[in-house]
């Protein structure tokens, strides 16, 4: 089984996990991206959204499980074909939520370009944007090294 281990900087990443956990809590009952299918009946919509929420929560659980006691002692996280798909999706969910909750003042064009001077941001916004970049880096790592595992699963 293909597996990658990544050593993270604990002093940098640990504070970001508070943001990730808070947003994951908020996603227990809310979809990261709204369901825009309008012409379906209420029962079908409820079932649809319920399934999406269940899938989203499973993914978020897998992401949060990366940051266990071993992570806080060694600073290492491991991605493999069992957790890669769930983690890459969970990162997308949290990043969408970050935009909704914290990053809208930056504007979408700035967010897409990533051209932001971190020093000019106040602390909550800076932390949220650091978290946004961190999760993007996790996604890029997984896509770069484990895309075949995801496509083959």
């Amino acid at each position, binding site marked *: 089984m293909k597996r990658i281990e990544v050593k993270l900087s604990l002093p940098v990443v640990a504070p970001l996990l508070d943001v990730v956990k808070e947003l994951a809590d908020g996603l227990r009952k809310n979809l990261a991206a709204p369901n*825009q*299918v309008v012409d379906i009946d209420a029962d079908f919509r409820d079932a649809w959204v319920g*399934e999406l929420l269940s899938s989203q929560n499973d993914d978020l659980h897998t992401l949060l499980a990366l940051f266990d006691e071993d992570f806080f002692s060694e600073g290492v996280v491991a991605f493999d074909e069992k957790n890669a798909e769930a983690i890459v999706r969970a990162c997308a969910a949290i990043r969408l939520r970050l935009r909704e909750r914290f990053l809208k003042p930056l504007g979408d064009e700035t967010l897409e370009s990533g051209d932001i001077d971190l020093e000019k941001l106040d602390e909550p916004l800076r932390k949220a944007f650091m978290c946004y970049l961190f999760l993007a880096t996790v996604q890029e790592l997984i896509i770069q090294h484990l895309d075949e595992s995801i496509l083959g699963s």
Partner: protein
Amino acid sequence: MPHIKTSPSPAPRTETKLQLEGVWRVVVLNDPVNLMSYVVLVFKKVFGFEENKARKHMLEVHELGRSIVWTGLREKAEAYVFTLQQWHLTAVLEPDEAH
């Protein structure tokens, strides 16, 4: 005015049925958050696209704001939209007026 006995139930049901028949498009809309590489991965995973085709649709989404990624019967289109939403892409269904 002639009196016509109406039965309200069948008419909407027929209309609904007709609306759901025919050919439907699965359309992915742009969002400022998801990475280009992520969107390409999702298209390859969900639709089995080759790299070039996945990139073409991703660039359409990015540059034009939307891309029609699949066309066909309603039930399968719904399944694709559901799967795209599982991957947190913004996907909608549209009737294909050409059919």
